[in-house]
């Protein structure tokens, strides 16, 4: 009873605030408010450009992790927002490209910062190879990534590999983009 009685009061307050905030000529339409401008005179860092109109909402890329937050995250949270980036491959190939080497160097730097981490590298393939051959190709991809990490000084016993062939695609699509996304060495942190 008390709740229901309060609703008109709340509405009235909201309306008043709404009308007050808008110019007198504009009708009282609910509208997102711009944030209050910064009190300092220095211009704020240039805001990101407004998102272009898309059919579906796009998830906002996460903020880069601060040093101390990585250490305190749960394993699942860490993997959901992993500091270890996946390495992608060409069709039927397990060779690490020059770009891939840079990526693995960055991953190696993270692993050196957290020497207690255990990592599994999953080898994945797209659907354009056979199920059986892809088990071997996925193994090769995971092993390529591991071998390069070890060459950068990562202890071999910190990194386990497993091939999933084409059994667990990341992208269920059947086009070039999906295939490229599925040809990967995927890093999973299994212990901190």
């Amino acid at each position: 009873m008390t709740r229901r009685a309060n609703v008109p009061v709340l509405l009235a307050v909201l309306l008043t605030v709404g009308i007050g905030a808008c110019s007198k000529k504009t009708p009282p339409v609910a509208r997102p408010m711009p944030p209050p401008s910064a009190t300092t005179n220095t211009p704020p860092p240039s805001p990101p450009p407004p998102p272009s109109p898309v059919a579906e909402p796009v998830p906002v890329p996460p903020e880069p992790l601060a040093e101390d937050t990585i250490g305190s995250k749960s394993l699942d949270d860490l993997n959901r927002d992993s500091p270890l980036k996946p390495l992608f491959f060409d069709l039927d190939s397990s060779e690490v490209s020059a770009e891939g080497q840079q990526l693995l160097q960055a991953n190696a730097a993270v692993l050196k910062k957290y020497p207690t981490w255990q990592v599994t590298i999953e080898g994945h393939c797209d659907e354009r190879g056979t199920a059986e051959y892809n088990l071997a190709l996925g193994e090769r991809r995971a092993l390529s990534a591991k071998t390069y990490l070890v060459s950068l000084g990562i202890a071999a016993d910190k990194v386990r590999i497993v091939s999933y062939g084409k059994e667990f695609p990341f992208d269920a699509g059947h086009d070039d983009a999906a295939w490229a996304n599925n040809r990967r060495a995927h890093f999973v942190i299994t212990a901190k």
Partner: protein
Amino acid sequence: MNNLDTRMTVLCAALIGGTAIVAAFGREGGQQPAPAPPPPQQPTSVELRLTVDPGTPPRLAVPDLLALSNDRETQDAAKTIGAVLWDDLNFEREFYMIPRDTYKSIPVAVSIDAVPFDRWRELGADGVLIGTVQKTPTGIRVEMRMYNVRARASAYGREYSGSAANPRLYAHTMADDLHDSQRSLRGVARTKLTFSSDRNREPVANTIEKRDVKEIYVADYDGANQRRITINRALNITPNWSPDGRSIVYTSYRSGVPDILISNIFVGTMESPSKGVGQNFLPVFSPDGTRIAFMSTRDGNPEIYIMNRDGSNLQRLTNSPAIDVTPTWSPNGTQIAFTSERTGNPQIWVVGIDGTGIRRISYESFADRPTWSPPPYNEIAFAARTGPGFDIKILNIASGETRQITFGEGSNESPAWSPNGRHMAFMSTRAGRSQIFTTDRDGRNIRQLTRDGNNTTPNWSQ
């Protein structure tokens, strides 16, 4: 582990359930198991074969069987057995099976002596299969006779009794017996398929990704009675039957990494022959069931190995820095065909099990999953890249000639021969997701057996 074994036992008990059928020859021997078959009570085969023109298959009709009691179970069994027997006989294409709806109006003979031969002759039938189903204290008794329509005489007769739990099995047994006695053919009606499926949509544990477990399933050759036989809650793929049909060996990620597991499906036990050494994939039983060929990365690179069923006597067959994968045994167990990319892309190769005589036999852009046909055919089927996807091809080893039996309807992979070499199971995306299909060796009679979830890597029992 105990818990798991218990559950497996329950599943397996269900599997055994339907198999207790005793075939008896002649009316008197009804309930007894028949260790050595006494001679059939009536002369068989010859008469029927003589009545058809050479080169044309005999025309057969299989009307509904006659239920000799009014209970629902017997009535249903009679209906099921007739329909399944027609399908089983049609599957091997040894007979011209007259469509069943064309003789619905011909009355079911009230007694086996009252067969309306004129009606059957009018229909053009050379033979008609007339059967009865009778309830017994322990199950049902099924009697089946084949009549030579022109001679108006019984050409063949058998009687079966056992549990009423799975009427389809009576039809399968009859079909195999008929093919054997009439056409000297080993039919496949009682064989089974095994495959991997994610139909339960059970999520994989310990991952943030959206992944469903795949478990090993078995089904009758025609897709009926699909049942799960593993509860590993992990990725389980590439199952392969032991020759005695009592075990299935497969690649399992149950321990987190790929390894070989053997499930003894009628006793509910498991074996791990590689005992945790290395990562091991794609196991296949030797034709005598004593050994297992497989791929392992234990020496740092995908290579082919052979070991005894208990893991002893390990032997490495290949030694190449390239990928060697997907072994299959020759029917006499002296050679292994496998996939190697040592020439730059995956091709089919053959090697003796002593490691000698290695040679390449395929010249495709990409070939994998060789599977060696049983005798009398000396052929290897495989999946070949033919465009965006794969198609099934068959290579005649003696002539070196290759023929293609699927043609770009989806992607077609993982062929597996039936034990008589006349059919193949394979997986195809022609109906959307990966499903199990069967085909005849000439590419005809393609049938879809699975529809739920993704179903992959089939194998056909002996």
